[in-house]
Protein backbone atom coordinates (compact mmCIF):
# COMPACT_ATOMS: atom_id res chain seq x y z
CA UNK A 1 0.00 0.00 0.00
CA UNK A 2 1.58 3.29 -0.94
CA UNK A 3 0.48 6.44 0.70
CA UNK A 4 0.32 8.37 -2.50
CA UNK A 5 -2.39 6.25 -3.95
CA UNK A 6 -4.24 4.68 -1.10
CA UNK A 7 -4.05 6.83 1.90
CA UNK A 8 -4.44 10.40 0.95
CA UNK A 9 -8.03 10.28 -0.06
CA UNK A 10 -8.86 8.50 3.17
CA UNK A 11 -7.00 11.08 5.18
CA UNK A 12 -9.02 13.77 3.51
CA UNK A 13 -12.26 12.13 4.50
CA UNK A 14 -11.06 11.51 7.98
CA UNK A 15 -9.91 14.79 9.17
CA UNK A 16 -9.84 17.81 6.99
CA UNK A 17 -8.63 19.97 9.81
CA UNK A 18 -5.01 18.74 9.83
CA UNK A 19 -3.07 21.33 7.91
CA UNK A 20 0.44 20.78 6.68
CA UNK A 21 1.53 24.35 6.91
CA UNK A 22 0.96 24.33 10.64
CA UNK A 23 3.22 21.39 11.26
CA UNK A 24 6.90 21.57 11.79
CA UNK A 25 9.64 18.93 11.80
CA UNK A 26 12.13 19.52 14.58
CA UNK A 27 15.35 17.56 14.88
CA UNK A 28 15.91 16.30 18.43
CA UNK A 29 19.70 16.08 18.67
CA UNK A 30 21.77 13.58 20.61
CA UNK A 31 22.65 16.15 23.19
CA UNK A 32 20.59 18.97 24.63
CA UNK A 33 21.13 22.11 22.61
CA UNK A 34 22.83 25.03 24.32
CA UNK A 35 23.77 28.46 23.07
CA UNK A 36 27.40 28.27 21.86
CA UNK A 37 28.56 30.39 24.79
CA UNK A 38 26.83 28.24 27.40
CA UNK A 39 28.05 24.76 26.58
CA UNK A 40 28.44 22.38 29.51
CA UNK A 41 31.98 21.89 30.73
CA UNK A 42 33.92 19.51 32.93
CA UNK A 43 36.93 20.20 35.14
CA UNK A 44 40.31 18.70 34.36
CA UNK A 45 43.76 18.83 35.86
CA UNK A 46 46.31 20.26 33.45
CA UNK A 47 49.90 21.35 33.68
CA UNK A 48 52.33 23.52 31.76
CA UNK A 49 55.07 21.32 30.32
CA UNK A 50 58.46 21.67 28.72
CA UNK A 51 57.76 21.41 24.95
CA UNK A 52 60.63 18.93 24.61
CA UNK A 53 58.74 16.52 26.82
CA UNK A 54 55.44 16.81 24.96
CA UNK A 55 55.67 13.58 22.98
CA UNK A 56 56.84 11.48 25.90
CA UNK A 57 54.26 12.85 28.27
CA UNK A 58 51.34 12.56 25.88
CA UNK A 59 52.22 8.95 25.15
CA UNK A 60 52.44 8.13 28.83
CA UNK A 61 49.27 10.01 29.68
CA UNK A 62 47.29 8.29 26.95
CA UNK A 63 48.24 5.04 28.61
CA UNK A 64 47.71 5.99 32.22
CA UNK A 65 44.69 8.28 31.86
CA UNK A 66 43.03 8.06 28.44
CA UNK A 67 40.31 10.69 27.95
CA UNK A 68 37.64 8.15 27.03
CA UNK A 69 34.59 10.36 27.01
CA UNK A 70 36.40 13.48 25.91
CA UNK A 71 37.77 12.35 22.57
CA UNK A 72 36.89 15.69 21.03
CA UNK A 73 39.21 17.47 23.49
CA UNK A 74 42.82 17.91 22.43
CA UNK A 75 45.29 16.69 24.97
CA UNK A 76 47.73 19.55 24.42
CA UNK A 77 47.08 23.28 24.30
CA UNK A 78 49.48 25.65 22.63
CA UNK A 79 49.33 29.20 23.81
CA UNK A 80 51.40 32.28 23.50
CA UNK A 81 52.67 33.89 26.70
CA UNK A 82 54.92 36.95 26.52
CA UNK A 83 55.79 36.13 22.95
CA UNK A 84 56.85 32.60 23.83
CA UNK A 85 55.06 29.42 22.91
CA UNK A 86 53.78 27.56 25.92
CA UNK A 87 52.41 24.03 25.97
CA UNK A 88 49.94 22.70 28.53
CA UNK A 89 48.68 19.15 28.73
CA UNK A 90 45.57 17.63 30.28
CA UNK A 91 46.47 15.14 33.02
CA UNK A 92 43.05 13.74 33.90
CA UNK A 93 39.49 14.60 34.84
CA UNK A 94 39.06 15.97 38.34
CA UNK A 95 37.33 13.94 40.98
CA UNK A 96 33.56 14.41 41.12
CA UNK A 97 33.78 15.67 44.66
CA UNK A 98 36.46 18.22 44.27
CA UNK A 99 39.83 19.06 42.97
CA UNK A 100 41.95 17.19 45.45
CA UNK A 101 45.18 15.94 43.93
CA UNK A 102 45.01 12.83 46.12
CA UNK A 103 42.13 11.56 44.00
CA UNK A 104 44.55 10.98 41.13
CA UNK A 105 45.86 7.56 40.16
CA UNK A 106 49.20 6.69 41.68
CA UNK A 107 50.85 6.47 38.26
CA UNK A 108 49.80 10.04 37.58
CA UNK A 109 51.13 11.28 40.87
CA UNK A 110 54.43 9.58 40.08
CA UNK A 111 54.50 11.25 36.69
CA UNK A 112 53.87 14.63 38.27
CA UNK A 113 56.73 14.12 40.73
CA UNK A 114 59.06 12.71 38.13
CA UNK A 115 58.64 15.59 35.65
CA UNK A 116 58.01 18.23 38.31
CA UNK A 117 54.66 19.23 36.88
CA UNK A 118 52.44 21.76 38.61
CA UNK A 119 48.80 20.78 38.09
CA UNK A 120 46.09 23.39 37.86
CA UNK A 121 42.36 23.00 37.35
CA UNK A 122 40.71 24.20 34.15
CA UNK A 123 37.51 23.70 32.19
CA UNK A 124 36.96 21.87 28.91
CA UNK A 125 33.75 21.43 26.94
CA UNK A 126 31.91 18.25 27.82
CA UNK A 127 30.39 17.50 24.40
CA UNK A 128 31.84 17.55 20.92
CA UNK A 129 30.86 20.60 18.91
CA UNK A 130 28.17 20.05 16.32
CA UNK A 131 28.51 23.41 14.64
CA UNK A 132 31.39 25.64 13.70
CA UNK A 133 30.08 28.32 16.08
CA UNK A 134 30.16 25.88 18.99
CA UNK A 135 33.64 24.77 18.06
CA UNK A 136 34.94 28.33 17.94
CA UNK A 137 33.55 28.98 21.43
CA UNK A 138 35.03 25.72 22.73
CA UNK A 139 38.50 26.71 21.62
CA UNK A 140 38.41 29.72 23.91
CA UNK A 141 38.42 27.33 26.90
CA UNK A 142 40.62 24.56 25.58
CA UNK A 143 41.12 23.41 21.99
CA UNK A 144 38.86 20.68 20.65
CA UNK A 145 38.53 18.93 17.35
CA UNK A 146 35.50 19.43 15.15
CA UNK A 147 33.97 16.86 12.89
CA UNK A 148 30.76 17.98 11.22
CA UNK A 149 27.92 15.57 12.14
CA UNK A 150 28.53 12.20 10.59
CA UNK A 151 24.95 11.01 10.44
CA UNK A 152 24.65 9.66 6.97
CA UNK A 153 20.96 10.33 6.94
CA UNK A 154 19.10 12.32 4.37
CA UNK A 155 17.02 15.09 5.68
CA UNK A 156 18.82 15.55 8.93
CA UNK A 157 19.44 19.17 8.20
CA UNK A 158 16.15 19.93 6.56
CA UNK A 159 13.35 18.34 4.64
CA UNK A 160 12.33 19.29 1.16
CA UNK A 161 8.73 20.29 0.72
CA UNK A 162 7.99 16.94 -0.83
CA UNK A 163 9.71 14.99 1.96
CA UNK A 164 7.90 17.04 4.59
CA UNK A 165 4.59 16.25 3.01
CA UNK A 166 5.29 12.55 3.18
CA UNK A 167 6.25 12.91 6.84
CA UNK A 168 3.05 14.83 7.63
CA UNK A 169 0.95 12.25 5.85
CA UNK A 170 2.41 9.37 7.81
CA UNK A 171 2.10 11.35 11.01
CA UNK A 172 -1.54 11.98 10.24
CA UNK A 173 -2.00 8.29 9.67
CA UNK A 174 -0.41 7.33 12.98
CA UNK A 175 -2.53 9.86 14.88
CA UNK A 176 -5.63 8.32 13.33
CA UNK A 177 -4.52 4.95 14.62
CA UNK A 178 -3.87 6.40 18.07
CA UNK A 179 -7.45 7.55 18.46
CA UNK A 180 -9.30 5.09 16.32
CA UNK A 181 -9.82 2.25 18.74
CA UNK A 182 -12.26 3.84 21.16
CA UNK A 183 -12.47 6.88 23.37
CA UNK A 184 -9.31 5.59 24.97
CA UNK A 185 -6.27 7.06 23.31
CA UNK A 186 -3.39 4.67 22.80
CA UNK A 187 0.09 5.04 21.39
CA UNK A 188 0.40 3.95 17.79
CA UNK A 189 3.31 3.13 15.52
CA UNK A 190 3.77 2.88 11.78
CA UNK A 191 6.95 1.44 10.27
CA UNK A 192 7.71 2.77 6.81
CA UNK A 193 10.23 1.92 4.13
CA UNK A 194 10.96 5.45 2.86
CA UNK A 195 12.93 4.21 -0.15
CA UNK A 196 9.72 2.96 -1.75
CA UNK A 197 7.29 5.03 0.33
CA UNK A 198 5.57 1.95 1.64
CA UNK A 199 4.04 1.05 4.98
CA UNK A 200 5.74 -2.07 6.30
CA UNK A 201 3.44 -2.53 9.25
CA UNK A 202 1.57 -0.68 11.96
CA UNK A 203 0.58 -1.40 15.51
CA UNK A 204 -1.13 0.08 18.54
CA UNK A 205 -0.69 -0.49 22.25
CA UNK A 206 -1.91 -3.95 23.16
CA UNK A 207 -1.60 -3.66 26.88
CA UNK A 208 -5.12 -4.34 27.92
CA UNK A 209 -6.20 -6.57 25.10
CA UNK A 210 -4.12 -8.66 22.89
CA UNK A 211 -5.84 -10.88 20.46
CA UNK A 212 -3.60 -13.92 20.22
CA UNK A 213 -5.55 -15.33 17.32
CA UNK A 214 -4.30 -12.83 14.82
CA UNK A 215 -2.96 -14.86 11.98
CA UNK A 216 -2.26 -12.17 9.51
CA UNK A 217 -1.29 -8.87 10.94
CA UNK A 218 -1.26 -7.18 7.56
CA UNK A 219 -4.93 -7.87 7.19
CA UNK A 220 -5.32 -6.60 10.67
CA UNK A 221 -3.54 -3.34 10.07
CA UNK A 222 -5.69 -2.72 7.04
CA UNK A 223 -8.68 -3.56 9.15
CA UNK A 224 -7.67 -0.96 11.67
CA UNK A 225 -7.30 1.50 8.88
CA UNK A 226 -10.84 0.81 7.73
CA UNK A 227 -12.11 1.00 11.26
CA UNK A 228 -10.56 4.39 11.73
CA UNK A 229 -12.19 5.61 8.58
CA UNK A 230 -15.60 4.47 9.69
CA UNK A 231 -15.01 6.05 13.04
CA UNK A 232 -13.91 9.32 11.53
CA UNK A 233 -16.78 9.50 9.11
CA UNK A 234 -19.29 8.66 11.79
CA UNK A 235 -17.97 11.37 14.03
CA UNK A 236 -17.74 13.87 11.27
CA UNK A 237 -16.30 17.16 12.28
CA UNK A 238 -16.36 16.25 15.94
CA UNK A 239 -13.62 13.71 15.46
CA UNK A 240 -11.18 13.73 18.29
CA UNK A 241 -8.51 16.39 18.13
CA UNK A 242 -5.28 16.75 20.02
CA UNK A 243 -4.17 19.94 21.66
CA UNK A 244 -0.57 21.04 21.80
CA UNK A 245 0.37 18.88 24.75
CA UNK A 246 -0.78 15.77 23.02
CA UNK A 247 -3.86 15.65 25.19
CA UNK A 248 -7.18 15.19 23.54
CA UNK A 249 -9.45 18.20 23.31
CA UNK A 250 -12.34 15.92 24.07
CA UNK A 251 -12.35 15.43 27.85
CA UNK A 252 -14.13 12.10 27.47
CA UNK A 253 -11.01 10.65 25.99
CA UNK A 254 -8.46 9.43 28.44
CA UNK A 255 -4.69 9.36 28.21
CA UNK A 256 -4.28 6.95 31.07
CA UNK A 257 -3.87 3.96 28.81
CA UNK A 258 -1.10 5.34 26.65
CA UNK A 259 1.60 2.78 27.25
CA UNK A 260 4.75 4.82 27.04
CA UNK A 261 3.38 7.69 29.15
CA UNK A 262 2.52 5.48 32.12
CA UNK A 263 4.42 2.24 31.75
CA UNK A 264 3.99 1.31 35.42
CA UNK A 265 0.25 1.79 35.46
CA UNK A 266 -0.97 -1.43 33.86
CA UNK A 267 -1.52 -3.18 37.19
CA UNK A 268 -4.22 -0.67 38.12
CA UNK A 269 -6.43 -1.52 35.15
CA UNK A 270 -9.83 -2.86 36.10
CA UNK A 271 -10.18 -6.62 35.59
CA UNK A 272 -11.33 -7.56 32.12
CA UNK A 273 -14.46 -9.56 31.73
CA UNK A 274 -13.45 -11.02 28.42
CA UNK A 275 -11.35 -14.15 28.49
CA UNK A 276 -10.84 -14.25 24.77
CA UNK A 277 -7.88 -11.96 24.84
CA UNK A 278 -4.67 -11.75 26.77
CA UNK A 279 -3.28 -8.55 28.14
CA UNK A 280 0.38 -7.76 28.30
CA UNK A 281 2.02 -4.86 30.15
CA UNK A 282 4.93 -4.68 27.71
CA UNK A 283 3.03 -4.68 24.42
CA UNK A 284 3.62 -1.01 23.73
CA UNK A 285 2.89 0.15 20.19
CA UNK A 286 6.54 0.20 19.08
CA UNK A 287 7.13 -3.32 20.44
CA UNK A 288 4.01 -4.55 18.65
CA UNK A 289 5.05 -2.95 15.37
CA UNK A 290 8.55 -4.42 15.62
CA UNK A 291 7.06 -7.85 16.17
CA UNK A 292 4.74 -7.48 13.18
CA UNK A 293 7.57 -6.33 10.97
CA UNK A 294 9.76 -9.27 11.99
CA UNK A 295 6.95 -11.72 11.31
CA UNK A 296 6.40 -10.09 7.94
CA UNK A 297 10.12 -10.47 7.26
CA UNK A 298 10.01 -14.19 8.12
CA UNK A 299 6.98 -14.70 5.92
CA UNK A 300 8.23 -12.77 2.89
CA UNK A 301 11.84 -13.93 3.08
CA UNK A 302 11.98 -17.45 4.42
CA UNK A 303 15.56 -18.52 4.88
CA UNK A 304 16.98 -20.73 2.19
CA UNK A 305 18.47 -23.86 3.67
CA UNK A 306 16.00 -24.04 6.49
CA UNK A 307 13.58 -26.89 6.19
CA UNK A 308 9.89 -26.37 5.54
CA UNK A 309 9.26 -27.82 8.92
CA UNK A 310 11.31 -25.11 10.48
CA UNK A 311 9.58 -22.34 8.54
CA UNK A 312 6.23 -23.65 9.59
CA UNK A 313 7.41 -23.66 13.12
CA UNK A 314 8.47 -20.04 12.82
CA UNK A 315 5.13 -19.06 11.37
CA UNK A 316 3.25 -20.72 14.13
CA UNK A 317 5.19 -18.55 16.54
CA UNK A 318 3.98 -15.42 14.87
CA UNK A 319 0.64 -15.60 16.53
CA UNK A 320 2.06 -16.07 19.97
CA UNK A 321 5.50 -14.96 20.98
CA UNK A 322 4.80 -16.28 24.42
CA UNK A 323 5.41 -19.83 23.33
CA UNK A 324 7.37 -22.00 25.68
CA UNK A 325 11.01 -21.75 24.70
CA UNK A 326 11.91 -25.09 26.24
CA UNK A 327 9.97 -26.93 23.55
CA UNK A 328 11.93 -25.44 20.72
CA UNK A 329 13.89 -27.67 18.42
CA UNK A 330 17.61 -27.51 18.34
CA UNK A 331 18.96 -26.14 15.14
CA UNK A 332 20.43 -28.71 12.84
CA UNK A 333 24.12 -28.71 13.61
CA UNK A 334 25.18 -29.24 10.02
CA UNK A 335 24.11 -25.66 9.45
CA UNK A 336 26.34 -24.51 12.24
CA UNK A 337 29.49 -25.55 10.48
CA UNK A 338 28.50 -23.79 7.33
CA UNK A 339 28.32 -20.31 8.74
CA UNK A 340 31.03 -19.18 6.36
CA UNK A 341 28.71 -20.00 3.51
CA UNK A 342 25.93 -17.90 4.95
CA UNK A 343 26.37 -15.00 2.51
CA UNK A 344 25.39 -17.36 -0.25
CA UNK A 345 21.86 -17.51 0.98
CA UNK A 346 21.67 -13.78 0.93
CA UNK A 347 23.00 -13.64 -2.59
CA UNK A 348 20.45 -16.16 -3.75
CA UNK A 349 17.44 -14.70 -2.05
CA UNK A 350 15.63 -12.14 -4.15
CA UNK A 351 14.61 -9.49 -3.64
CA UNK A 352 17.21 -8.55 -1.11
CA UNK A 353 16.18 -9.55 2.33
CA UNK A 354 16.08 -6.70 4.83
CA UNK A 355 18.22 -6.87 7.94
CA UNK A 356 15.81 -6.08 10.78
CA UNK A 357 14.47 -2.54 10.18
CA UNK A 358 17.63 -1.14 8.60
CA UNK A 359 16.69 1.85 6.47
CA UNK A 360 13.15 2.03 7.81
CA UNK A 361 11.47 4.92 9.62
CA UNK A 362 8.98 4.69 12.45
CA UNK A 363 6.22 7.15 13.23
CA UNK A 364 4.84 7.26 16.77
CA UNK A 365 2.11 9.41 18.28
CA UNK A 366 4.03 9.80 21.55
CA UNK A 367 7.74 9.90 22.31
CA UNK A 368 8.72 6.33 23.23
CA UNK A 369 9.74 5.21 26.73
CA UNK A 370 13.17 3.70 27.48
CA UNK A 371 12.04 0.16 26.67
CA UNK A 372 10.63 1.11 23.26
CA UNK A 373 13.43 3.52 22.38
CA UNK A 374 16.04 0.83 23.08
CA UNK A 375 14.01 -1.74 21.18
CA UNK A 376 14.19 0.61 18.18
CA UNK A 377 17.99 0.76 18.58
CA UNK A 378 18.12 -3.05 18.61
CA UNK A 379 15.92 -3.27 15.53
CA UNK A 380 18.13 -0.75 13.65
CA UNK A 381 15.45 1.80 12.79
CA UNK A 382 16.84 4.71 10.77
CA UNK A 383 14.65 7.64 11.85
CA UNK A 384 12.00 8.17 14.51
CA UNK A 385 9.22 10.73 14.17
CA UNK A 386 6.89 11.44 17.05
CA UNK A 387 4.18 14.03 17.55
CA UNK A 388 3.98 14.53 21.32
CA UNK A 389 6.67 14.54 23.99
CA UNK A 390 6.50 12.19 26.95
CA UNK A 391 7.61 14.18 30.00
CA UNK A 392 7.19 11.28 32.47
CA UNK A 393 9.09 8.53 30.77
CA UNK A 394 10.28 9.67 27.34
CA UNK A 395 13.69 8.39 26.30
CA UNK A 396 14.39 10.56 23.25
CA UNK A 397 14.97 13.85 25.00
CA UNK A 398 12.43 14.19 27.81
CA UNK A 399 13.90 12.00 30.57
CA UNK A 400 16.64 10.12 28.76
CA UNK A 401 18.23 10.77 25.38
CA UNK A 402 19.21 7.45 23.86
CA UNK A 403 20.12 8.98 20.51
CA UNK A 404 23.04 10.62 22.31
CA UNK A 405 24.36 7.51 24.09
CA UNK A 406 27.59 6.98 22.20
CA UNK A 407 28.22 3.47 23.46
CA UNK A 408 25.16 2.07 21.67
CA UNK A 409 25.94 0.17 18.47
CA UNK A 410 23.32 1.95 16.40
CA UNK A 411 22.08 5.51 16.27
CA UNK A 412 18.89 6.78 14.73
CA UNK A 413 17.91 10.35 14.01
CA UNK A 414 14.97 11.68 16.01
CA UNK A 415 12.40 14.26 14.98
CA UNK A 416 9.38 15.74 16.64
CA UNK A 417 6.61 16.61 14.23
CA UNK A 418 5.10 19.50 16.07
CA UNK A 419 1.57 20.71 15.70
CA UNK A 420 1.05 24.42 15.93
CA UNK A 421 -1.69 26.50 17.46
CA UNK A 422 -3.93 26.90 14.48
CA UNK A 423 -4.01 23.16 13.97
CA UNK A 424 -6.79 22.47 16.39
CA UNK A 425 -9.06 25.17 15.07
CA UNK A 426 -8.35 25.31 11.37
CA UNK A 427 -11.06 23.96 9.15
CA UNK A 428 -9.91 23.66 5.60
CA UNK A 429 -9.66 21.30 2.73
CA UNK A 430 -6.20 22.42 1.83
CA UNK A 431 -2.91 21.02 2.82
CA UNK A 432 -3.19 17.31 3.07
CA UNK A 433 -4.32 16.46 -0.41
CA UNK A 434 -3.19 18.34 -3.42
Amino acid at each position, binding site marked *: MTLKKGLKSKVLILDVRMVNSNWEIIHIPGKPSYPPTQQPTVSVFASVIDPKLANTLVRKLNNIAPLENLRHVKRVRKSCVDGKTQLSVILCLTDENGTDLDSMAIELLELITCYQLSPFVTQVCKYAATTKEEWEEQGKLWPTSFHPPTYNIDGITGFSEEDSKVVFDYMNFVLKLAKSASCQLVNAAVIVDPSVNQIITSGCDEISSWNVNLDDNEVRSLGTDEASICHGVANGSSSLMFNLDGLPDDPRASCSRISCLNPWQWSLSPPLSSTSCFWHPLRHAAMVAIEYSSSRDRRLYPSIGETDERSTQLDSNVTSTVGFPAKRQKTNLTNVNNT*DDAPADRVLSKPERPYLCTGYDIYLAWEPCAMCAMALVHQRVRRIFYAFPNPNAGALGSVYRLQGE*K*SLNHHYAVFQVKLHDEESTAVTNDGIVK
Partner: protein
Amino acid sequence: MGSIESEDSCSTSAFMELAIQEAKNALERLEVPVGCVIVENKKVIASGSNRTNETRNATRHAEMEAIDSLLQQWQQDGLSQSDLAKRFSKCVLYVTCEPCIMCAAALSYVGIKEVYYGCANDKFGGCGSILSLHNTSSEYSNLVEGKGYKCTGGILASEAVSLFQTFYERGNPKAPKPHRTVVQS
Protein backbone atom coordinates in the same frame (compact mmCIF):
# COMPACT_ATOMS: atom_id res chain seq x y z
CA MET B 1 24.94 -4.37 46.85
CA GLY B 2 25.38 -5.57 50.43
CA SER B 3 27.34 -8.59 51.51
CA ILE B 4 25.66 -11.85 50.72
CA GLU B 5 25.14 -14.55 53.33
CA SER B 6 27.01 -17.71 52.47
CA GLU B 7 23.90 -19.87 52.13
CA ASP B 8 22.25 -17.29 49.89
CA SER B 9 25.41 -16.90 47.90
CA CYS B 10 25.33 -20.65 47.34
CA SER B 11 21.79 -20.62 46.00
CA THR B 12 22.55 -17.46 44.00
CA SER B 13 25.27 -19.24 42.06
CA ALA B 14 23.13 -22.35 41.76
CA PHE B 15 20.39 -20.30 40.06
CA MET B 16 22.98 -18.53 37.93
CA GLU B 17 24.24 -21.93 36.80
CA LEU B 18 20.76 -22.62 35.47
CA ALA B 19 20.79 -19.29 33.65
CA ILE B 20 24.14 -20.21 32.13
CA GLN B 21 22.68 -23.51 30.97
CA GLU B 22 19.96 -21.50 29.21
CA ALA B 23 22.67 -19.35 27.61
CA LYS B 24 24.40 -22.50 26.38
CA ASN B 25 21.14 -23.61 24.80
CA ALA B 26 21.02 -20.29 22.97
CA LEU B 27 24.59 -20.77 21.78
CA GLU B 28 23.68 -24.15 20.31
CA ARG B 29 20.86 -22.48 18.40
CA LEU B 30 23.35 -19.93 16.98
CA GLU B 31 21.96 -17.17 19.16
CA VAL B 32 23.89 -14.62 21.18
CA PRO B 33 24.36 -16.66 24.37
CA VAL B 34 22.32 -14.98 27.09
CA GLY B 35 20.03 -16.95 29.36
CA CYS B 36 17.97 -16.34 32.46
CA VAL B 37 15.70 -17.92 35.05
CA ILE B 38 12.98 -16.31 37.16
CA VAL B 39 12.71 -17.54 40.72
CA GLU B 40 9.80 -17.24 43.15
CA ASN B 41 10.10 -18.61 46.69
CA LYS B 42 13.41 -20.29 45.78
CA LYS B 43 11.75 -22.15 42.93
CA VAL B 44 12.44 -21.60 39.24
CA ILE B 45 9.12 -20.66 37.64
CA ALA B 46 10.30 -19.53 34.21
CA SER B 47 13.35 -19.53 32.01
CA GLY B 48 14.36 -17.94 28.77
CA SER B 49 17.17 -17.46 26.32
CA ASN B 50 17.91 -15.22 23.42
CA ARG B 51 15.88 -15.80 20.23
CA THR B 52 16.75 -12.70 18.22
CA ASN B 53 18.21 -14.48 15.21
CA GLU B 54 15.50 -17.08 14.95
CA THR B 55 12.65 -14.57 15.17
CA ARG B 56 14.46 -11.75 13.31
CA ASN B 57 13.12 -9.67 16.14
CA ALA B 58 16.01 -8.04 17.97
CA THR B 59 13.86 -7.48 21.05
CA ARG B 60 13.49 -11.18 21.83
CA HIS B 61 16.05 -11.16 24.61
CA ALA B 62 16.16 -13.86 27.28
CA GLU B 63 14.42 -11.63 29.83
CA MET B 64 11.54 -10.84 27.49
CA GLU B 65 11.12 -14.53 26.69
CA ALA B 66 10.93 -15.44 30.37
CA ILE B 67 8.53 -12.60 31.20
CA ASP B 68 6.27 -13.60 28.31
CA SER B 69 6.15 -17.20 29.41
CA LEU B 70 5.14 -16.11 32.92
CA LEU B 71 2.45 -13.79 31.60
CA GLN B 72 0.95 -16.57 29.55
CA GLN B 73 1.19 -19.10 32.36
CA TRP B 74 -0.41 -16.79 34.92
CA GLN B 75 -3.19 -15.61 32.65
CA GLN B 76 -4.08 -19.18 31.82
CA ASP B 77 -4.37 -19.64 35.57
CA GLY B 78 -6.88 -16.78 35.57
CA LEU B 79 -4.85 -14.24 37.50
CA SER B 80 -5.91 -10.60 37.26
CA GLN B 81 -3.64 -7.65 36.59
CA SER B 82 -3.26 -6.86 40.27
CA ASP B 83 -2.64 -10.54 41.16
CA LEU B 84 0.01 -10.61 38.52
CA ALA B 85 1.68 -7.47 39.78
CA LYS B 86 1.84 -9.04 43.24
CA ARG B 87 3.47 -12.17 41.86
CA PHE B 88 6.09 -10.21 39.91
CA SER B 89 6.95 -8.29 43.07
CA LYS B 90 8.10 -11.57 44.62
CA CYS B 91 10.20 -12.68 41.68
CA VAL B 92 13.97 -12.64 41.37
CA LEU B 93 15.67 -12.72 37.97
CA TYR B 94 19.04 -14.40 37.38
CA VAL B 95 20.50 -13.44 34.02
CA THR B 96 23.96 -14.12 32.60
CA CYS B 97 24.53 -10.57 31.35
CA GLU B 98 23.42 -7.20 32.73
CA PRO B 99 19.97 -6.42 31.27
CA CYS B 100 20.11 -3.97 28.37
CA ILE B 101 18.27 -0.64 28.58
CA MET B 102 15.14 -2.18 27.04
CA CYS B 103 15.02 -5.14 29.41
CA ALA B 104 16.00 -3.05 32.44
CA ALA B 105 13.03 -0.79 31.74
CA ALA B 106 10.72 -3.75 31.12
CA LEU B 107 11.76 -5.30 34.44
CA SER B 108 10.89 -2.05 36.17
CA TYR B 109 7.50 -1.86 34.41
CA VAL B 110 6.51 -5.37 35.48
CA GLY B 111 7.77 -4.60 38.98
CA ILE B 112 10.33 -7.34 39.53
CA LYS B 113 11.75 -7.58 43.04
CA GLU B 114 15.42 -8.21 42.40
CA VAL B 115 17.96 -8.94 39.67
CA TYR B 116 21.27 -10.82 39.78
CA TYR B 117 23.42 -10.69 36.67
CA GLY B 118 26.70 -12.18 35.49
CA CYS B 119 28.88 -9.89 33.43
CA ALA B 120 28.33 -6.16 32.96
CA ASN B 121 27.10 -4.87 29.63
CA ASP B 122 29.24 -1.83 28.93
CA LYS B 123 27.59 -1.03 25.61
CA PHE B 124 23.86 -1.36 26.38
CA GLY B 125 23.56 -1.99 30.10
CA GLY B 126 20.49 -0.50 31.79
CA CYS B 127 21.34 -1.48 35.37
CA GLY B 128 24.28 0.80 35.98
CA SER B 129 26.56 0.63 32.93
CA ILE B 130 24.89 3.15 30.62
CA LEU B 131 21.64 4.04 32.38
CA SER B 132 20.41 3.08 35.85
CA LEU B 133 16.82 2.11 35.23
CA HIS B 134 16.76 -0.15 38.30
CA ASN B 135 16.95 3.03 40.35
CA THR B 136 13.89 4.51 38.69
CA SER B 137 12.23 6.87 41.09
CA SER B 138 8.77 8.31 41.27
CA GLU B 139 9.82 11.59 39.69
CA TYR B 140 9.40 9.92 36.32
CA SER B 141 5.76 9.17 36.80
CA ASN B 142 3.20 11.35 38.46
CA LEU B 143 0.48 8.72 38.36
CA VAL B 144 2.10 5.60 39.68
CA GLU B 145 5.46 5.38 41.34
CA GLY B 146 8.11 4.05 39.07
CA LYS B 147 9.38 0.79 40.45
CA GLY B 148 13.02 0.26 41.16
CA TYR B 149 14.61 -3.07 42.01
CA LYS B 150 17.70 -4.28 43.76
CA CYS B 151 20.42 -5.28 41.36
CA THR B 152 23.66 -7.21 41.97
CA GLY B 153 26.23 -7.98 39.29
CA GLY B 154 29.31 -10.15 38.95
CA ILE B 155 27.73 -13.57 39.65
CA LEU B 156 29.70 -16.20 37.67
CA ALA B 157 30.70 -13.40 35.31
CA SER B 158 33.66 -15.19 33.75
CA GLU B 159 31.49 -18.09 32.61
CA ALA B 160 29.10 -15.68 30.95
CA VAL B 161 31.97 -13.88 29.24
CA SER B 162 33.53 -17.09 27.93
CA LEU B 163 30.22 -18.00 26.27
CA PHE B 164 30.26 -14.64 24.46
CA GLN B 165 33.83 -15.28 23.38
CA THR B 166 32.89 -18.65 21.95
CA PHE B 167 30.03 -17.05 20.07
CA TYR B 168 32.00 -14.17 18.59
CA GLU B 169 34.91 -16.40 17.61
CA ARG B 170 32.49 -18.38 15.50
CA GLY B 171 31.02 -15.17 14.10
CA ASN B 172 27.39 -14.18 14.28
CA PRO B 173 25.87 -15.91 11.25
CA LYS B 174 22.97 -13.50 11.04
CA ALA B 175 24.86 -10.24 11.23
CA PRO B 176 24.90 -8.32 7.95
CA LYS B 177 27.91 -9.01 5.76
CA PRO B 178 30.21 -7.35 5.36
CA HIS B 179 29.90 -5.88 8.83
CA ARG B 180 28.96 -2.26 8.57
CA THR B 181 31.54 0.03 10.02
CA VAL B 182 30.58 1.56 13.31
CA VAL B 183 29.44 5.15 12.91
CA GLN B 184 32.16 7.40 14.21
CA SER B 185 30.79 10.19 16.27
